[in-house]
């Protein structure tokens, strides 16, 4: 069961991004109020804001942590067309005693001519590298050649994606078998421009990033994309937030040793869920990439989990806005939660289908040819979790009661 509690964020405007550090002990938030806040978790699990400062002269879209082996380093990007790198320093004053930390700006990256929409550090085995993408469709990869001096960043690569970029995600795999790779999503709404997620891969020979794949089936605006932590798996998993939640599997085809081109992938769509009704805003993987969380226009956070048969199912729905009561009392409130929803299980049993699992042949031409924004599989294939959001209240009750019997169900079909 998941229990949610509210934290007084004290941001003056919309919060655009939340980001945990490597250990999950610190958190950074950024907001339209142009500030970034850093939070530290105390021993008893409470979050305390230990720093809050104005970072940009526009809405701050994203904030992200570097691996702690590079120090306590944050990067932020903003509508003001810049990205910035911040480092925590041990101040001269007694900040530490007052529970405040001090962050100073190490650099401002001003290469973009338009709003910088996402910023991400590359996986740590690549060194200290920072990637930004911007609304003019350019991905920039910076490197700090000297990790002791964060004020110097050199622009290593500039990759034009032709489409306005909204999000970027690095493949976290540290395996030598996988060359560095990232996915860029575009929020361009024009479906005729083709695939909105492009995957680039580093080529050891040319020392450049080259496009390895375009996910042609995604023609609607993409708001977020996330590579799953690889964890030694032989394939990569990519979650995409567009008008629905989609999970793709990229299976690297074994290369002949002679070929030097980009890795070829077998692209499989593993799951597709339109439960968020219209737009899906964010997707995020847990550390073992066994749980996916997504948020969407229906104001809910949904949790997805695959069973052993690789069937993805909704295992939890959390109301995103908290109930109106939570704000005033400040008490931890048990949110409406559905774990392993019973209605769904029974429905699946009724239909006798394995829900949420559809394999399409890679690069399926008929689907691409429909070209329309409505690229949903036929209704019979879509997993209908609708039952839940029609009567969530009743259901949550029934679920709690029946959770025991449920377990046996879910485990038995996991075998």
């Amino acid at each position, binding site marked *: 069961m998941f229990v949610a509690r509210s934290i007084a964020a004290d941001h003056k405007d919309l919060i655009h991004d939340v980001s945990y550090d490597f250990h999950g002990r610190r958190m950074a938030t950024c907001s339209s109020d142009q500030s970034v806040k850093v939070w530290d978790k105390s021993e008893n699990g409470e979050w305390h804001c230990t720093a809050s400062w104005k970072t940009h*002269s526009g809405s701050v879209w994203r904030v992200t942590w570097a691996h702690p082996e590079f120090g306590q380093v944050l990067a932020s990007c903003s509508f003001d067309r810049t990205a910035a790198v911040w480092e925590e320093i041990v101040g001269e004053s007694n900040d530490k005693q007052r529970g405040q930390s001090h962050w100073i700006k190490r650099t401002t990256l001003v290469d973009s001519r338009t709003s910088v929409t996402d910023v991400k550090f590359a996986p740590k085995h690549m060194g200290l590298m920072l990637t930004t993408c911007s609304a003019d469709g350019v991905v920039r990869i910076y490197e700090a050649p000297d990790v002791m001096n964060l004020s110097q960043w050199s622009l290593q690569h500039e990759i034009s994606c032709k489409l306005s970029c909204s999000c970027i995600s690095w493949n976290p795999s540290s395996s030598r078998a996988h060359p560095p790779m990232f996915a860029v999503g575009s929020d361009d709404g024009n479906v005729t421009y083709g695939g909105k997620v492009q995957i680039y891969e580093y080529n050891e020979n040319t020392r450049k990033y080259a496009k390895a794949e375009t996910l042609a089936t995604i023609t609607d605006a993409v708001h977020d994309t996330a590579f799953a932590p690889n964890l030694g798996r032989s394939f990569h998993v990519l979650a995409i937030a567009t008008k629905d939640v989609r999970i793709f599997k990229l299976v690297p085809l074994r290369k002949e040793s002679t070929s030097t081109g980009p890795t070829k992938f077998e692209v499989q769509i593993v799951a597709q869920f339109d439960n968020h009704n219209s737009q899906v805003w964010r997707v995020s993987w847990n550390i073992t990439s066994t749980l996916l969380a997504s948020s969407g226009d229906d104001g809910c956070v949904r949790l997805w989990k695959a069973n*052993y048969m690789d069937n993805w199912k909704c295992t939890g729905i959390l109301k995103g806005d908290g109930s109106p009561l939570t704000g005033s009392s400040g008490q931890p409130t048990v949110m409406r939660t559905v774990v392993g929803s019973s209605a769904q299980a029974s429905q699946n049993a009724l239909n006798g289908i394995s829900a949420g699992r559809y394999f399409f042949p890679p690069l399926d031409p008929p689907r691409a040819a429909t070209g329309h924004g409505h690229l949903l599989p036929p209704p019979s294939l879509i997993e209908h979790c609708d039952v839940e959001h029609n009567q969530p209240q009743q259901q949550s009750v029934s679920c709690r009661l029946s959770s025991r019997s*449920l377990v046996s169900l879910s485990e038995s079909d996991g075998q």
Partner: protein
Amino acid sequence: MSGSKSDILWSPHHPDRYVICDSELGLYRIGPAGCAELKAGTVPLSGETAATLLAINSDTPYMKCVAWYPKQEPECLLAVGQANGRVVLTSLGQSHNSACKELVGKEFVPKHARQCNTLAWNPVDSNLLAAGLDKHRADFSVLIWDISSKFSPEASVSAEKIRLSSSDLDPSLVVTKPLYDLGQNDACLSLCWLLRDPKLLLAGMHRNLAVFDLRNTSQKTFVNTKAIQGVTVDPHFPDRVASFFEGQVAIWDLRKFEKPVLTLTEQPKPLTKVAWCPTRTGLLATLTRDSNIIRLYDMQHTPTPIGDETEPTIIERSVQPCDGLIGTFAWHPSRQNRMVVVSATNRAMTDFTVFERISLAWSATTSLMWACGRHLYECAEDGPEGAQGLLEQDIATKMRQRAQSRYGHDTVQVWRNHLLAGGNDSQLKSLWFDLFYMKQCAEDAELKLQGNKQAIVYSGIKNIVKTSSGTTESRKCWSGSERQTEATRFHSEERGLALRLCGWMGRASDVDVEPFLRSLEQEREWERAAAVALFNLDIRRAIQILNRGAMAEKGDLNLNVVAMALSGYTDEKASLWREMCSSLRLQLNNPYLCVMFAFLTSEPGAYDGVLYESSVAVRDRVAFASMFLNDAQLPRYVDKLTNEMKEAGNLEGILLTGLTKDGVDLMESYVDRTGDVQTASFCMLKGSPGEVLKDPRVQCWIENYRNLLDAWRFWHKRAEFDIHRGKLDPTSKPLAQVFVSCNFCGKSISYSCAAMPHQGRGFSQYGVSGSPTKSKVTSCPGCRKPLPRCALCLMNMGTPVSSCAGTGKSDDKVDLTRENKLAQFNNWFTWCHNCRHGGHAGHMLSWFRDHTECPVSACTCRCMQLDTTGNLEPLDSS
């Protein structure tokens, strides 16, 4: 609003009431949708809310527009503009208030009848009601009425005229003289009062937008534009106004009224409503005709102009509140981003909240944080103390728990690891028993000095049966009877080994299955025990086991029936027994009972009923196969089963593949499926045949597992894992990381030299060895110069700290208590990498317990705070 077009108005004071007007006025109240409360007149609006119809008013026909009186009292007063230009005050529900009684029914009549397009109450001076009318020759089109004004005798002439049409009206309630009349010779399509000054009225006239000032009605500021419909002022930004024309929305800044600041992308269909969100700045909702979506324009990110170019940005979103076409909508005045939507066709209402983009993130420790609007919510998976034990946990949680219970670290009783893992995963159980048997066999082989056999133990049954040679056949009797069985049993050394790996044969004797049967009985696995006994051609024992199973506490009495059936066994081909058993066995639930009859009824050599019964444990099937399949069938069967296991990533298959490349393949598909790198790492470390560990995939799992432990701050567990790994894979040991070199001669001061003098070549060179060295650790072994002094005790480093005598002998390390460990550490060299001051570790630790700055005078270095990660406590400190 006649006929099709409807509108919604929220009550300005009751957050749960609204009015829907189409041909009549309907007042609704929103409440929670409880089943108990459901009664007639209640319509569900959403999952949680339902609306109750409170009152209907159909007194005023030909409604064109409605406006709700903004003041608290009288509460339900509405102004209705009619098709003939009259404005009628009406009310919903009972109004006991005298002020209200006086007002209700009052009519304001223009000089010439024409359609009333719009109404607007002055938000401050609430007596004033502005009405916008169609054009009538040179007449005024914007009339501002004072609702408190009485019947005016001067206007009695026109009142007379009107009486012709509506004779039933009380003349005292008819007002014909407006307070102001504006907009001569023009038509007015939309009106709104400006918030920055209650005397200013913005009107969308025919082909221009005009601002009227009531203090000086002769003048107006205006701008020519087509976008004159639906003027509305942003409640959060009083100078910002939106208006529309056809499919286009124009945003105006009243301070810069010449041209629109912004025009939004044109919609293919004409717009019907544009409304600012009252609860959030800069959010504009628009609706077009025959559409099922509401478009939202988020303008709040428009920053102050930087330099010369202003870059107005808008985030456009569309929401679909209901399935059908939307007639109209209205924002809730106070609830955040909430609106009620009325469908165009059937007047179905929907309560709908527009949600902000929720951003979310998982932490390393399975808690989820999300930000909704300005609020943060954290959500963590409940601890195991809840009713969680039963629910399938995520593998991340499982791995964390298993790491803490030292899963994988039991290297003696290897099988116990499955208990450390929680003991409820059959695959893990099977895996660790496999590894346990492998270890046992390997140890036995070592005892017998059969080096070659030791290697083959870990290569799995698949490879063992391939090398099988010298197979002998035997036809045994059913024990306790003279009858010969039809089944041929095969024997060879390799098959014997396979049976041992399957766990059927103990280490003591190579033929007796009895100990295994007894252990199964102890585990109450009656059916399995009976099947094993039967496969060992001991029907009597099998029956005995079943009997015992039926008799045991909570035993299944049906087992007796099975035993009876079993006792009737006959090998006659055409017997009824055979016929019935082979058909009825399929209905048995327990797979072991099923395979027992399959074995008895099958033709010799054709045991598919047993071999392909997938619910029977792999080890039992393999053991069966190695007893009854001949040299040609056995490898084929094992190969087939191996591939099946590899495909499925089933850990039971490790029995077949062993810890070979095949085993890594199998483990790869297990990891692909589950992400359980923990089991994969430990399993691959168990075998210790070097080549498996060199596989890049195995290295990758180990690295990923270590990374997980690091992220969870299980640093001690990580270190233990590294030690464990270093024992089996010496190449993984990291090199020495830090050397202390002497200030004078630059040679390394190797502290370990003191304990192990024979290793320190530098020592022997100088002819010092044994006890004299121990006393001289305060000086450099190279040049004999003293080592630096501790910043606190001012003794030369290397001097034993008073509380602990000596640097300790190496054999002390065997039984180090916690106290001892600390004492050992107390005389270590430590120094701050920043200020280069240092001393004995124990002294430094105690100093920084109370201080933040370096103990060296005039050094302000905050040595202990420099490293943020260094200040984190490991989560698993034991």
